[in-house]
């Protein structure tokens, strides 16, 4: 096996939002098969950290590397390899879940309707596949967003509060999906308040 560095590293990033020093020298490393949970009180910059790791936000200091290369040089390749699920489910209210997925996933890879339907089935919203998203509940929208994460088939998952608006079965679903992903040598960076029930491959990063 080659000795090339694998995975994501974030090295000593500093971010200021106006006057606030939101991230003060935060570092992390993520290898295939690992799940890193980012936790901490409100306002400590968890979402900001995720956005820096995705490459949406440029830090004042520090850098992010992917497979040993800084992401500023390999942005298209890096961003094709990840999927980001933010607080907002990123769904258009006037389109159906199937149409939403087709447009979002279709920008990255050619995908068939069957694959999308399978993803919606896996997350339990296959019944709503033909309804406009605006009639779905918040929990159902979250599940559609999860289906998008599945359908992207990316190696790196960046999830911001994936358990929001989900009931017990929904939370169990998220945990199962994470477990399957990580077992298949995927990586995940998850911002979450409650502890994820995954033994073994789970590490935590507390932000102050």
């Amino acid at each position, binding site marked *: 096996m080659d000795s090339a560095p694998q995975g994501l590293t974030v090295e000593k990033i500093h971010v*200021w*939002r*106006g*006057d606030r020093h939101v991230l003060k020298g935060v570092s992390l490393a993520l290898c295939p098969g690992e799940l890193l949970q980012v936790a901490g009180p409100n306002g400590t910059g968890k979402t900001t950290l995720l956005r820096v790791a995705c490459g949406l936000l*440029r830090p004042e200091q520090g850098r992010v590397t992917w497979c040993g290369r800084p992401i500023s040089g390999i942005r298209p390749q890096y961003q094709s390899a990840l999927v980001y699920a933010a607080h907002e489910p990123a769904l258009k209210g006037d389109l159906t879940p199937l149409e939403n997925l087709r447009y979002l996933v279709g920008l990255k890879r050619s995908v068939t309707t069957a694959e999308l339907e399978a993803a919606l089935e896996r997350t339990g919203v296959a019944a709503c596949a033909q309804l406009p998203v605006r009639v779905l509940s918040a929990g159902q929208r979250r599940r559609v967003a999860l289906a998008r994460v599945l359908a992207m088939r990316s190696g790196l998952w960046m999830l911001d509060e994936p358990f929001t608006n989900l009931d017990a079965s929904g939370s169990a679903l998220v945990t199962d999906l994470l477990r399957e992903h990580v077992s298949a040598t995927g990586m995940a960076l998850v911002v979450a308040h409650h502890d994820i029930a995954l033994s073994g491959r789970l590490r935590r990063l507390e932000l102050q």
Partner: protein
Amino acid sequence: MWTWFYRLASPPYVYRSAAALTPWFMTVAAIAIVCGLVGGLGWAPPDYQQGDAFRIIYVHVPSAYMSLFCYTTMAVAGAIGLIWRIKMAYALAAATAPVGASFTVLALITGSLWGKPMWGTYWAWDPRLTSELILLFLYAGVMSLRPAFEDPARGDRAAALLAIVGVVNVPIIHYSVLWWNSLHQGATIAKIGKPSMPASMLWPLLMMLLGFMCFYGAVVCMRLRGEVLNRERQSAWVREAIKS
């Protein structure tokens, strides 16, 4: 050579240099403007066509020139800030904007005052004045955009981008207004013609230009210090500087 460039990016350095440069700029500005005014108002002979009315060019032309110069400076500073992510460049752009806008207003007022003896009216949609007016609108756009953001860094970047887009459009706007004017104005309307310029008329103009340039330098240095203090108010060196 690059160390000089990067030193310019350091806020304490900019703060101290601006303080040191201000009196020099002010002195040169005062001398140049006085010489220019004396030369232009007293020495230069009256224009055979326009009489003494033409003397307003000694304020009008330098202001118009400075209004364009300031806009370009703002755009270049913005570009430097965006490309090399130097915060002091944004401070320079922010410091320059109102000064440039003031020069534009001055150019418009003096141009309008010149218009009265020339056309008999204070405003006649002359191509140059119309271009200046549109430039004022461009300034207004940039100056309104910056404070519209909650995060001042984002406001700086957006204003810088707008200034760059604007500066690319300035020649387009100027030529389109010229075209429009040639279309609609008959040959009967006299334009603010450049009087033929013997040396005795020209050198006061250049002196005034130099004076205005140095005045801009002095004012921008003063404003820049204020901008630097405001932007860096959280840092230690500012607290030291304020205490002393």
